[in-house]
């Protein structure tokens, strides 16, 4: 089979060991608390790579850290004020075991950070990244990437992509950098046969049938576009939302940020950017206190409209990737799945 390869599971760790010599390796690691998190791996032999559970974090924090220094400044006197760029070279990094939802989220972040103005920090980290995907044979309980069309399998956007076929992975590439890895380490890869590709397709068909959540995404998108979402839905959601920002922080496609100064001495400081959430009441509040958006009532509405209405209008697809993390984290029960299904059950 042209351009499709096999990697025996026994060869995975030896391959990663080789790759780790060239790249900083980031992969889902099960920690001592039992959490699985994308983690930069220091010593491969001392960690347990976990490809069975969904990582609790996405790749967002690696390309767009929760807080980062944009530059430093000093003003020894009123008549001097200097700005020094922070040169923080991101090492070439290989992200391993990236599921289709998280891969789709990176492709969405590319649009946010690189389409018009090019964000220098993001661009640098992205240019130095290799994405090795992992198709999802077994979607998790809160997953709904089948309706956001970002999984359970994906066929673009990765450098390399693995599909678990039991004792081996089927390996595909979508970018020349992925092909280079196969060429450089060909001792680990064997050409795939027709049976392997059939097995991959079979896995895809089975995975597609395994989703347990019923999410009427298209219907909600249509209702939002037509202005048919009943006011009672917004009222109930805003009443129940605890304004914790958890959904936005955990979301792989929520990229709103704030910029602020941190004074480090009498005459110096750092200009920082930090994650922000459009559900927060201060998000649109202007100097002097005027707020053009009633955040109490409309904060959560803005978030859902952005993902399911405005981004659909602009890019023809929602910017929710169906990873289900907000479903797991929201203790107010106002996650996006609840919203979608409320919208479709209530009569307008």
């Amino acid at each position, binding site marked *: 089979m042209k351009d499709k390869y096999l990697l025996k599971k026994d060869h995975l760790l030896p391959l990663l060991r080789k790759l780790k010599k060239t790249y900083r390796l980031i992969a889902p690691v099960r920690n001592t608390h039992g959490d699985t998190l994308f983690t930069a791996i220091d010593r491969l032999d001392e960690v347990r790579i976990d490809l069975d559970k969904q990582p609790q974090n996405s790749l967002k924090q690696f390309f767009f850290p929760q807080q980062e220094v*944009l*530059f430093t*400044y000093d*003003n020894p006197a*009123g*008549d*001097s*004020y*200097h*700005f020094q*760029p922070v040169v923080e070279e991101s090492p070439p990094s290989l992200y391993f075991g990236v599921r289709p939802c998280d891969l789709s989220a990176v492709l969405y972040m590319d649009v*946010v*950070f690189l389409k*018009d*103005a*090019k*964000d*220098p920090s993001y*661009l640098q980290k992205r240019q130095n990244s290799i994405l090795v995907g992992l198709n999802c044979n077994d979607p998790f309980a809160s997953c709904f990437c089948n309706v956001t069309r970002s999984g359970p399998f994906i066929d673009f956007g990765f450098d390399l992509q693995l599909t678990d076929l039991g004792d081996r992975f089927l390996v595909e590439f979508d970018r020349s950098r992925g092909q280079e890895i196969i060429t450089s380490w060909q001792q680990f890869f064997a050409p795939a046969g027709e049976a392997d590709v059939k097995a991959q397709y079979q896995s895809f068909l089975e995975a597609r049938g395994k989703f347990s959540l019923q999410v009427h995404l298209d219907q909600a998108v249509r209702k939002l576009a037509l202005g048919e979402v009943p006011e009672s839905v917004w009222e109930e959601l805003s009443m129940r939302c605890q304004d914790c920002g958890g959904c936005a922080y955990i979301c792989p496609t929520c*990229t*709103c*940020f*704030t*910029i*602020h*100064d941190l*004074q480090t001495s009498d*005459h110096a*400081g750092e*200009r920082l*950017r930090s994650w*922000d959430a*459009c559900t927060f009441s201060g*998000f*649109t*509040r*202007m*100097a*002097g206190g005027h707020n*053009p*958006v009633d955040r109490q009532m409309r904060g959560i509405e*803005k978030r859902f*409209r*952005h993902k399911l*209405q*405005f*981004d659909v*209008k*602009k890019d023809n697809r929602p910017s929710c990737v169906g990873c289900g993390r907000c479903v797991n984290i929201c203790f107010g029960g106002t996650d996006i799945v609840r919203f979608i299904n409320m919208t479709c059950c209530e009569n307008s």
Partner: protein
Amino acid sequence: MPSQSKDLYLPRPAEIREVIEENSQIKTFALSFIDREYQDRFSYAPGQFLMVSVPHCGEAPISVSSTPVSGGAIHLSVRRAGRLTAAMHGMRKGDVVGLRGPYGRPFPMAELAGRDLLFVAGGIGLAPLRSVINTCLAAGHGRRITILYGSRTPSDIAFKADLTSWGETANVSCLLTVDRAEPGWQGEVGLVTALLAQCRLEPDDAKALLCGPPMMIRAVLAELAERGFADEDIITTMERHMKCGVGICRHCHMDDKLVCRDGPVFTLQELKQLKVMELLG
């Protein structure tokens, strides 16, 4: 002249050449970049804004109130509203701030040429319109210009030198009103919409440019609609909380538009497609 990628968020130091106290709340800062070569290359268009940095206070978007002249000082008229603007009000000639920009979609200057122009402003709202008016006059705009300006009290009237000079220009009529008179005030008292009633306007051949508090905008829009102005001939500039200024951070969103990138200048026709507080009340 937006920054290159690597210094997207990096301001450049600019020195305060002059501070003009417009009223107790508004000061106009005349600034120029310390890098003389950059200052000479720097250009902007009326309606655009700059991100202003003040030590330890972060950044705020301020629209330019001057007329783009090669190498000329950049005027930023700043109302004391929050922490950054209060700190800026404490700054003197010779002090240094950071500037980056200009950003945003400017007023459609080419469309304004050859049309009667109506400017309606309230308070600090005259700042961005001042840039348009002086640019039009410098370009020899020959058609009628009507300027209506509302302030809270006579001592709140800003840009007095400009108002005087506009009042003395042949094709310009400049009318002022205040919400509350003070001893010695001989002029109008009342809403800026009352001034509108005194004006001779030919809506088919005019453009109206508004900037001011939302309540004023709503009242003026209603009056202009009554007078037969088409939505595409009514232009305003929006104010929103902003952080990046370059269309990434999303603080200034209005539905699917971003004020920093798609605005801040919008026609009423464009705004009617959006759920905008200024129009909805």
